[in-house]
Structures are given as C-alpha cells and as structure tokens.
C-alpha cells in the first residue's frame, strides 16, 4: 500500500537556519511520532518505530539515511526502510524536503511517499492508510515546529507551540471541492464580502496525492483504500481536540499519537476553513 | 498456566491451558473433539459454532480460559441416547449439506435460532443464519431444513400439504 503526501509550510527563520536544523538527524527523527533513534553514523541511522492505533500495534526496526543532500538547492531526501519486529511486513518512506527563501522566512515543501507491506497492508479497511496519513501529517507538523525554532533550540514539547502564519494554498489538487454545495457551508461569510483575515494556525497545508500509478485506483478497481486521507472533522470535535492539546488531562496516555492527531486535525480544519472562506469570498 | 474446568458434551474436563489457547483448539487439539472445524480467522464463517452455556458462540473467537466453568455442547453432543437431534435429521432429510464443512456450525446456529423463535419465517431463518457461511448449498435447502427441524421440534411433524 503506497501513499503520497505533500506538505507545505513557512517558518519564520532564515533558510540557512532552517537548513542547519534539517540536517540534524537527532532532532529531525523524533518529529516522527513513535520513532526512537538507536544509532547515528554519519548520514545513516538506525531506529525503531512503533505504530499504534487502538489495540493495533506494529513495531518496525530499520534504518534511514540522508540522500541527495543538495546544500545549494537546500533540498534533501531521507530514505527509511524498516521491517516489522514481529511479523514479515515492511515499511518504507522517502521524504524529500525543499527549502525556499521567502524574505526573512523560509517556505518548506515536504514530499513524502510511504509504503507498507505485510499483514497491516492486507485489509480492505486500510488500517495503514488510516495511520500513515496521520503519521506523516504529524511529522510535517513537528518538522514545522522544529524548523521554526532554528538551530540550538530544544525540540518542541508538543504542538501547543503554534506559530501564527498564513496558511498556504495546497500545492496539489485540493481534496475538497470548491463547488457550491460545499461552499454554501462556509460559516457566516457574506457572499462577495472580503475574506476574513486568516486565523492563527499551524502553517501546514495538507494535500494527499495519489501515488504514481494510483491515479486510476487500484488498477482499475474503483474503491481505493490507499492514497487518501482525512483532513478535517467537525468543529465540535476540533474544540475537543483543542482542549486535549491544551493539556486537560483527558488524554494522559497515548500522548504521541492522539495528541498528534488532534493537532493535525485542528490544523486541517483551520486550513480548510480558511480555504473555504477564500472560496466563499471570491 | 491457568487451570480451567469445562464441561464438553457432558464430560467434565480439567485442563491447564495457555491463556491464548482458543476454545476451538482446546476442543480439537486437546480434547479430540474434531467435530467442530475451523473455517476462518475473523469470526465470519461460523463453522466453529458451538453452544456455550446454552447459546451459540463462535469457538474460534473465544479463549479457552473464557470458557472456564462453562458448559459447551458441540455437534458431537447434540444427539441424545443414540438418537439424532431433529435438526440433524432435518438437514439430512432436506439435503441441506454437500461438503458438510459448515454443517456442524450451521446446525448449532439453527438450533440456537429456534430458541428465540420456534416457528421462524424463511426470512427470520436467513437472518438468523447470517453468521454461518456455506459455499455449497446456496442455502435454499438449509432454510427448508431449519423449517422442518422447527416443525419436528414443536411436535407438529412436517406439514405435508
């Protein structure tokens, strides 16, 4: 099961500062929820990663390395490959991050492909699609936090460190249609009125792109479990998530994933609202 | 290892079992009760259906330790005093089985459904058997058999009109 994700965000630090952080594997690796770094040797590192969804757990062991590090273009690729600690399946990810200067800030694009094999990939309900999307979203969000801190800072404790920046239009095709049906749901913005100023939000735009070859679904089958992800939920739930993120002890356990999801969901919702407003206002 | 006591088809067994041992494997591998087969690993097919304390249960989705102190009746314990249960007779009479692999579970499910509804409609029979898959019969004769079994069990005999 292969999935591809594109993320884009802007951090308020210079490109050189961001680049320096990006190369620091001991700080980048923990951006992936559930990941533990075991060894680092040059551009290669080994580690473990525990993926947990409710009662379902899959632990991977594997290694990763920096590849195609281009300091002039400010782009690099991290390739990771792991095997299930207790099963025969594998997981692999290729993350390509590119930095683009934007004044004193830096725009970051993260392109991730994610591939899972073995039992977790052998179900129609897409256990790993469910998890994969969230993991990668969380990774991008954490990376955004990390890069925003600049070199020398401590890794972000959690997603509460929201950096207010302008949401960015997704680079790929938007998941939600801009048709009138959906548009009509936009809360309270008058037709033709000016768009509201963007709300403070985490600077992440989420886009899901079918992996190569997936465009026409699974080889011509229509329902397609992979390559898709959810990006929003209802406002009520976001409110709940906000509380959770704010640290109300509703969620003492499973901090990494649940909090991550909450954060990502929140972001997604905020971003989407912003997008819808733009639509409604245009 | 936990020690459990379980009555199967009228015999009391005391067994030490690994907690993960499935009831169906206790029956098949430990007690030699191979009349109850296994057809899937997700609780869908119903081939392993037994009576657990009087109601149908899929023995592949129950741990042996969960059955501690329970009474289990399998297809092997359905006949009494050398006489087939009316539902067994009915499956034979209506040609409600072909390969027979689903049959033990199907018969147990059929017996169970009559506990709630002694005179079920065809639709109720079909709904009541939704957790038991058969690949051979197309279910028509199974529905007939359950109807016949119900009539036998209610003492009416089979309506012949």
């Amino acid at each position, binding site marked *: *099961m*292969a999935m591809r994700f594109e993320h884009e965000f802007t951090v308020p630090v210079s490109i050189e500062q961001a680049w320096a952080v990006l190369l620091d594997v001991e700080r980048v690796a923990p951006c992936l929820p559930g990941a533990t770094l075991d060894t680092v040797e040059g551009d290669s590192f080994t580690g473990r990663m525990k993926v947990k969804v409710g009662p379902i757990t899959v632990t991977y062991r594997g290694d990763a390395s920096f590849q195609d590090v281009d300091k002039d273009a400010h782009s690099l690729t991290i390739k990771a490959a792991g095997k299930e600690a*207790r099963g*025969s399946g594998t997981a692999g990810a290729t993350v390509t991050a590119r930095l683009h200067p934007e004044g004193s800030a830096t725009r970051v694009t993260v392109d991730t492909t994610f591939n899972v*094999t073995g*039992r977790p*990939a*052998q*179900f129609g*309900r897409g256990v790993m699609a469910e998890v994969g999307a969230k993991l990668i979203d969380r990774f991008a969000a954490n990376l955004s936090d990390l890069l925003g801190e600049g070199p020398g800072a401590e890794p972000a404790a959690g997603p509460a460190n929201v950096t207010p920046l302008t949401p960015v239009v997704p680079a790929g*095709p938007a998941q939600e249609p*801009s*048709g009138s049906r959906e548009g009509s749901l936009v809360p309270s913005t008058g037709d033709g009125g000016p768009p509201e100023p963007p709300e403070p939000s985490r600077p992440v735009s989420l886009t899901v792109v079918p*992996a190569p070859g997936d465009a026409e679904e*699974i*080889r*011509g*089958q229509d*329902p397609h*479990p992979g*390559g898709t992800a959810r990006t929003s939920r209802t406002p009520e739930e976001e409110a709940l998530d906000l509380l959770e993120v704010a640290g109300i002890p509703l969620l003492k356990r499973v901090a990494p994933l649940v909090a991550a999801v909450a954060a990502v969901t929140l972001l997604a919702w905020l971003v989407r609202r912003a997008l819808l407003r733009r639509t409604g206002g245009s | 290892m936990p020690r459990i006591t379980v009555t199967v088809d009228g015999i009391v067994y005391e067994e030490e079992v690994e907690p*993960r*041992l499935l009831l169906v494997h206790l029956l*098949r*591998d430990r007690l030699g009760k191979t*009349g109850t087969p296994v*057809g*899937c*690993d997700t609780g869908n*097919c119903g081939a392993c259906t037994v009576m657990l304390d009087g109601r149908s249960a899929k023995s592949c989705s129950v741990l042996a330790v969960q059955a501690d102190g329970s009474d289990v009746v*399998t*297809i*092997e314990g359905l*006949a009494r005093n050398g006489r087939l249960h009316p539902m*067994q007779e009915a*499956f034979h*009479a209506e*040609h409600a*089985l*072909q*390969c027979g*692999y*689903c*049959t033990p579970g199907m*018969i147990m499910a059929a017996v169970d459904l009559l506990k709630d509804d002694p005179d079920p409609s*065809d639709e109720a*029979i*079909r709904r009541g*058997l*939704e*957790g038991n*898959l058969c*690949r*051979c*019969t*197309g*279910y028509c*004769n*199974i*529905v007939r058999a359950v109807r016949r079994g119900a009539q036998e069990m209610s003492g009416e005999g089979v309506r012949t009109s």
Partner: protein
Amino acid sequence: MTEQIDAGMVARRIAESDRLGSPDPGREIGRARRRKEDARLITGRTLWTDDIQLPGMLYVAFLRSPMAHARITRVDTSAARNQPGVAAVYTGRDFAAEQGSLPCAWPVTEDIVIPDHPPMAVEEVRYVGEAVACVVATDRYKAADALEAIEVDYEPLEPVLDMTEALAEGSPKVHEAGNRSFTWKFSGGDVEAAFRDAPVVIERTYVQQRLIPTAMEPRAVVATTDGTAFTLYSSTQIPHVLRVMLALTTGIPEHLLRVVAPDVGGGFGSKLQVTAEEVLCLLLTRRLGKPVKWTESRSEGNLTVHHGRDQLQRITLAAERDGRIRGMRADLLADMGAYLMLVTPGIPILGAFMYNGIYKMDAYDFTCTGVFTTKMPTDAYRGAGRPEATFAIERAVDELAHELGMDPVEVRRRNWITHQEFPYTTIAGLTYDSGNYEAATDRALALFGYDKLRAEQADRRDRRDPVQLGIGVSTYTEMCGLAPSRVLGSLSYGAGGWEHATVRLLPTGKVEVVTGTSPHGQGHETAWSQIAADAMGVPFEDVAVLHGDTTVAPKGMDTYGSRSLVIGGVAVLQACEKVKDRARKLAAHMLEASPDDIEFSGGTFSVRGTSAGKTIQELALAAFAAHDLPEGFEPRLDADVTFDPQNFSFPHGTHLCAVEVDTETGMTKIRSYVAVDDVGNVVNPLIVEGQVHGGIAQGIGQALFEEAVYDSEGNLLTTTMTDYLIPSAADLPEFVTDRTETPATSNALGVKGVGEAGTIAATPAVVNAVVDALRPYGVRDVRMPCSPERIWRAISESGGAAAGWAGPTEAEGGER
C-alpha cells in the same frame, strides 16, 4: 403462459414430488435418495485432513512473502531455530536441490513460456504470499511463534499488476523470459466475411474479475513415512493426479506413495492443484522422519489458494438487423498470475469452444494471450473458462437485443439451435449431441412470470420509480465431462480424460464400488450406489462406494469439470454390466441353461419362461465357494472398467433473474430467480437440485459480491472474509428450479453433468438483469461485482442522477 400460477408454488411442488420418490418405483436411478454421506457429516464424525493426529506429529507453518516482487537477499533462521518446540526451520535454498518445480500439465502452445516454480522461493518472490521459509514445531502455536523470528531481507522489484501494461514495451518483467506466456488462436468459418458490411456490430469489453474460490475447508496436508513408503493426506480433489505429479516432482517412486483425500470440504476447482505445501510436506517428512501437518488459515488461504477467472475480454459480434448473428470475435487477455500451475494456461482455452454458446453463426475467431503478473496464479474455479465464455456471449446477445430494440428472449430464439437440429456441429467444432432450448426456455418463462414482470418494469420506468426492476436472461450450454482423451491430447493437455471403476460382488451379496472420482460434497457415495443398485438388482443399502485413497482406489482421474457422473458414473454402470455378464454365465451353469436364455430382473437371474432362478446373492456365495463353476471360470464376480468418453456432454438451461435496483443507493436486491436446467437424465434429483442451488449462489457471488483486489503495490486487500464477501443466507433469495430432461446420447446413462451449470448460467443472468434495470439511465454495462457504488456511479456517469439526489460532482469524482 401460465403467469397466474405462483412460480414459487410450482417449483415447490416439483421439488416435493422429487422428494416423494422416483416416478418409477423400484428403480433407484431418478429417486431422491437421502445421502449416505450425511451421517458422519451431521454428527461431527467426519475425518477432515486437519483432524488427523499421528504419533510424534510435527506442525508446519510457512513464512510468506510480504512483497509482490522482490529479490531475496538474506534469510536468517537462526533465532527461529532456537525457539522452544522448534524442530527445524528451512528456507527455499535448503530444499533447492530436491524441491523441483511445481508442475504445469497443460502447455497449450509449442512456444509457451513455463517458468520454473520452486515450491519455496529461492532467489526471487513474485507474489504476496509466496512461501519463503518454513518452521516445523511441536504444535501449531509454537510454529506460528517461530515464524516471527525468521529474518528475511528483500530487495524490492517492480510489481507487475496490469495485464495490458505488462505486455507493453518496457514493462518490468515477472520472469526473465517476459510477461507473455502464450498466445493461442482458434477460428472457424470466414470471420472477415461475417463482419464485412455487417449491419450491426456490437463491441464490448468485459472484465472477469479475479475471484477467490473459498471452499469452506481451508487446505490441509498431513505427510508421513515409515522410512520406505510415504502417505500424503491432503484436502484435494485429485488424489490420483496428485500422486503421479508428486512422484514426478519429488522423485518419490509412485509405487511407494499413497495419496489419500479424506473428507474434503469443498473444492470448486481450488483443490484441483499440486501445491507447494503438498510437495514440501512430503519433503519435510522425508527429511525429518516424522509425520508433519500443515493447515492453512483463511487469511493465508486467500493469499495462496489459486485464484480464479481474471480475464479481460474484448467481444465483437456481427449481426443482421433481424437479429441473426453472423459472426463473433473473442480477444482475451488472461492473467496467469506469477506462475503456471497445474492447468493455469488451459483455463481460458476451455472456454474457447463455448463463446458461440447455443447459437448458430457463420464464423468465429478466438485469441487468448496468457500474461504473467506478480499475483497469485490463477487456475480452475467452478466452470473454468466456460463461465467467462457464457458471460461474454450472453451479455453481448443482450446488448444486441437492446441495439435492435428486440426482446432478449426473442433474439435468442432467432439464433439458437432448434431441437430438431441436433446433433449439431457448432462453429467452434463441437458436436452438441442433444438439447431442447425451446422447452427449457418456455418452462422458465412460465415459472418466472416473464410477461408480468416486463409489465411491472414498464410501469416502474414510467413512474420513474427510484427502485427499478431489471430482468436478466441467460441461456447457456457448457461442455461437461472432461473429457475424451484424444480431444485433451489435441489440446496438449498432459493426461487423459478417462475414468475408472471397479465393482465387486462380495460373498454375502453386498456390493463394493470403487471409483476413481474423488467427491468433496457431490454425493458420489449415494449416486453411485443408486446406479449400482439398479444395475445389480441389490438394495441401495447393500452398496458401498470406496474412493479417495490411491491404495483403495488405485486408478482414477478424479473430480472436476462436471465429469464425475458423465464418465465415472458411466464407468460404474459398465463395470456392473461386466460383473453381471459373469454372473449370468455362472447362473446359466448352475441352472443348466444357456446364457442366452438367462434373464435378469430384480436381482435374480432366471431361465426365460421358467420359475427357476438364482439371486445375485446366491451367485455371489457360489462364486466365493467356487465348488462348482463353469469350465475356465475364474472364481470371482468383479470387474474393472476404464471408460473414455467419445464426446463431451452438453447440459443447458435457461436462467431468469429479476432484480430490484435502488437507484438512490445503487443497491441490488434479487427479487426472483428461476432456473430450468437440462442435465439429461437424473440419477438423484435431490443432489442435482443442490448442485444447481450452490452453483447459482456462486454465480451470484461473482455478479454482485466477490472480488480479489490487489492494491497498486501488489498487496492483496481481500485476505479475510470481512473483505472478500461471499454471500450468506441473508443475502440470497430462494431459487426456483425445475428441469427439462433431454437425455445425452453420448453415454449409457443419458446424463450430462451438473456441477458447474448453475455458476455458468447465473452470473450473466444477474448482470443482464442489473444492466436491464439501468437501461433507462443509458447504462450499458456495470463491471463485476456490481457493487452498489459501481451501480451508483454508472447511473451518475450516464447523466441520470436518480430521483433528485446528486451524483458525484466532478471534484468528488476526482477523489477516487
């Protein structure tokens, strides 16, 4: 038409009359005998392969590839070996020298590519689920645990998943020799002429989705040896073929190898195979000197039991405006999967002779290319080639009817072979010996209430009812009784199509029938007893049928392709006749009469015109005692027959299906289903009806529910029964069945075979009904399985959003 009669009632009455007994009292053939097999099956006293426990037995579990295509770069079994209870751990490399290659017995062309197929992969894996290593442990739990300790490194290779792309230039290769296994061509008549200036041409592409046979009993194998000889128990349809093939593959001499098929819980073609697990269990018992058992789980089985169908069919039909078909082209791609298994390439070829169906036409052209992909190999699944052919022609004929604005039944009438025209040699070269399509169709139409349903359909269309009614017709025939050996030879099949029977009259007058067929639900013990009881004049209860063990029944060709009764049953009859011939001689001797004056009736040989006679039981004892036998008469009353048929048999029938399609949700509900089959003479109507029921259910399964789905990386998503949907009782209607009986002329019983008929007929009947329901929306096809979403999309994409509910917007559609 008798539309006022309630169809269900009629069928019930017919069924009841069957149940009440034979129309010819005293005759066993034709009687609705309850099955002998049932006693053990309804009480749990069956012996399934997994039930077998042998002293010191070890349990095998296989580690399977998570990759669709990869090179194996390292396998480390050391940790697994040290786990408690583990006797051995082996990789493909450990068996490379002795495991051989799994056989393909049907090289359909001279230049066919048959890749090496090691039972355990050695260097490369080519589908998810391919065995890479195995653990042998003291119980199944420990074996499963140890699998987790085996480490395998893979170097991923590109998966190959789409047949068309696989054949394109530059595609990654499944095997070094490329992705094309063979191209097989066949034609009759002048196809160019048939299509030249044809007033109507129908061209359609149909997808026969990949199916998982899903016999209820998962496969299991037990192998044991005493150091010299080997016994293999397997949940197989083909103990005899398996014995030969295992001997050839493993080098274990055939005479030292016994193969037993204990009770087998369904097959549907999926157990017509020589599997990696069977080979490896034999090798493991040879290496370890211990009995071993392997039982698959359902999720393992969905990955690794051979799959069925998976063809892409381009069908072109040329016709006159009056509906008469001029000619047909069928151009197929058939997905072989990663390897060729026992009869993989032959499956689409079996269909080649059936694309013309029951119709007369001037020309026909067939091409099939077998393509390798990185998926589980395909092979026989109920119908094997013939359902695909029947689907194509029956769907295309419906399209022709629609194109011409004709009733689909009428178009069929204009084209089918009329009953006066039999025997009829078709454009595909087969000689259909007998049939009466008119009778079966008329009967079906009456039972169905065809005209009334058409009226209701018109009314619903007029009212724009959100629930639309569709009517599907399927008039099928099939070639059964595989098969005349010379025909199989001409098709390059690796074996013959004969069947063997032995009949032994025991000293006490009881009869043993030994058959080479290998039933797994078909009720041969009952039906063969009926044949023998009639032929020998003994009570039904006095016959025992032995099968499924190469020691007990050493000769046979086993059970598949609706062949058992047509060939095996006839062999039983012939063997009985031979025994009777001997008995007649003995009776003549004892009665001091000429054998020519001896009559046989009701189990007694008597001198014509006298009351003097000897019962067959008396003769049995006399032969046993052998005190007073005719000169040169061997003291035995038994006989062997190996029967090789001269022709196939051709059951046919008309199936009608009415569906209600909820156009708002796309949900299809089968409202009524009528099947009138002509399977020739019937030995046991109860068994025939059961076969038809089950066949229809599987045909409906393909039409509406089932599909094996691989994702874009080659992972199988339908590994469990929660995702591979086979219908339950709650998902199917009552089927109304009836029969016409046009005896086959090609065998002494006049029988035609019934195992696959329902499946072959049902799929096009249902899909035709679904499409018929959607005609007002401009829909002309829905891909199988016709899931609610596919139907909803078909409606939406034809611009016919139902009853005001919006279809997918463009943006939403893009999200797929």
